[in-house]
């Protein structure tokens, strides 16, 4: 069973018949398997966030169907689907509602009218999962960006979603905060078996995924294992994506006449370079 499935999905902002430049998605097909960790890449305006927003009904498709665990997303089951598909956005300040950490985490669970004891258990679980149990009584506004974003994730986790979509959730964080979030997401994926769709600009984050998907102008143009995707450097550049820095170095070394293999791992690149330099001497 697919966790998430897009079948011939159409969508546009504005009216494409009036405005030729209006952004549109045409007949998009896309699947995510249960338990998978998928990274979605693409330059600004490629449609990555639109994809994320269609998946839990924030945006409504103009045509085709979106299935979540084989249930077709529609107006009637929107709220049921949203319990299964949680979204974390870019700016942590825009998605916290309460002033105290545990109140904020409880908000979603209260909204779906869970019994009080159950809410307590969910808060415990969610804050534990993101490593914020000690800070449950803290004031949200005094937390760091990474901590706030972990609170936002906990708020989504309290609804026990089966799919989590992170729409550039690390973009506004410093390297330490970004690592905190990625560690949490990896753990949720591996231990809680939550299906993860990670929309990101950071090529280094995409390397951690099981599969990477590249979008361009509302269409999926590449997909495969991250290492395969990043080996196709000319295509990536054509889609206005930058290569991870390590791929840039490998490429320039090769253009300079060295026979180093494509790799995204620092120590294997060092092995390659060292081997090449030593055998020459």
């Amino acid at each position: 069973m697919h966790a998430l499935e897009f079948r011939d999905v159409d969508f546009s902002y504005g009216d494409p018949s009036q405005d030729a430049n209006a952004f549109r998605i045409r007949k998009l097909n896309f699947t995510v398997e249960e338990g998978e960790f998928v990274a979605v890449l693409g330059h600004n305006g490629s449609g990555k966030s639109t994809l994320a927003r269609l998946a839990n009904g924030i945006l409504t498709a103009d045509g085709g169907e979106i299935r979540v665990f084989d249930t077709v997303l529609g107006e009637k089951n929107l709220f049921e689907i949203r319990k299964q598909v949680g979204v974390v956005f870019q700016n942590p300040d825009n998605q916290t509602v309460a002033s105290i950490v545990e109140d904020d985490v409880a908000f979603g669970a209260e909204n779906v009218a869970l019994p009080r004891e159950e809410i307590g258990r969910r808060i415990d679980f969610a804050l534990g999962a993101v490593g914020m149990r000690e800070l449950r009584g803290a004031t949200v506004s005094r937390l760091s960006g990474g901590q706030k974003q972990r609170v936002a994730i906990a708020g989504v986790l309290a609804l026990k979603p089966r799919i989590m979509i992170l729409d550039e959730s690390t973009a506004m964080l410093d390297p330490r905060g970004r690592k905190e979030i990625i560690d949490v997401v990896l753990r949720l994926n591996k231990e809680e078996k939550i299906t993860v769709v990670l929309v990101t600009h950071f090529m280094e984050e995409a390397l951690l995924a099981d599969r990477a998907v590249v979008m361009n102008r509302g269409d999926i143009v590449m997909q495969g294992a991250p290492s395969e995707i990043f080996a196709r450097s000319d295509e990536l550049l054509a889609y206005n994506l930058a290569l991870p820095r390590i791929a840039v170095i490998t490429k320039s070394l090769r253009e300079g006449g060295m026979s180093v293999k494509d790799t995204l791992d620092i120590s294997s690149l060092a092995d390659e370079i060292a081997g090449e330099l030593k055998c020459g001497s």
Partner: protein
Amino acid sequence: MRIVVEHLSYTYQPRTPFAVKALDDVTLTIEEGEFFGVIGHTGSGKSTFVQHLNGLIRLPSSLKRQKKIKPKKGCLPPPPPVLKVGDFDLGDKKTDFRALRKSVGMVFQYPEYQLFAETVKEDVAFGLKNFSEGKPDPRQTEEAVREALSIVGLDYDEIADKSPFDLSGGQKRRVAIAGVIVTRPEVLVLDEPAAGLDPLGKREIMQLLHRIHGSWCKTIVIVSHDMDEIAENCTRAAVFSEGKLVCVLPPSELFRDAGRLTDLGLDIPLTAKLVLALRERGVEIDCNFRTEDFVAAVLARKGGAS
């Protein structure tokens, strides 16, 4: 304009339970013409530091009313702080802070959130209006806005009458930067100018800063978390940790001693990681840690060896 900072300290919410010492006895000099980097963790004091540079945070001695704090008995009073930007003495009450702010442009984090006007040209012109004595000349204003938009890589005729809110993220940020450089500040300070942009947007912003550097603004100061960005672009960088200045060095020396940064929990550029990994494998590569230079150094070794 040369920036001279001596014994600068700052505490947020002093004399409260929330007091945080954000800067602790910082002394450094930024020469005219530098592309200067400021690095450190969140909370290390780097933003507090740059906010001093155009008087957003004032030295107590420059304020009309000051609280006299008696030094503890038996302690020497701390040396008085000095903060000078060119001829402006920021510790002096009589300093014209308006003129200072015209000479030191400040681009905050996510400057696109500060766009407010109905059209791009009004938004960019706001700074000019704000700083001009009397009513600004509309022709000169238009000319200045046109030039500012052109140097940030936007076409005046195409964009001037659009709402800034209809632009893409990267374009918005460039409009916001145009709105700061339109007054031709000598020093431009940017707090994480490339944060949150896609890789291409990042590259465009850095190229834009190099275009401005030397021509529009003599000195550029950037705050960044991205060590690769620092290695590629900066003449020197200051490292902050817990309010203290750790060191000020050019990237070629700063990243040579990787332990100093990793001990502070800071990252090092990819090139520096590769140099370290190669050293473990018995290969010494000497480079200034720019990607180009690293590749050239490796290729030179290869050429020399065979």
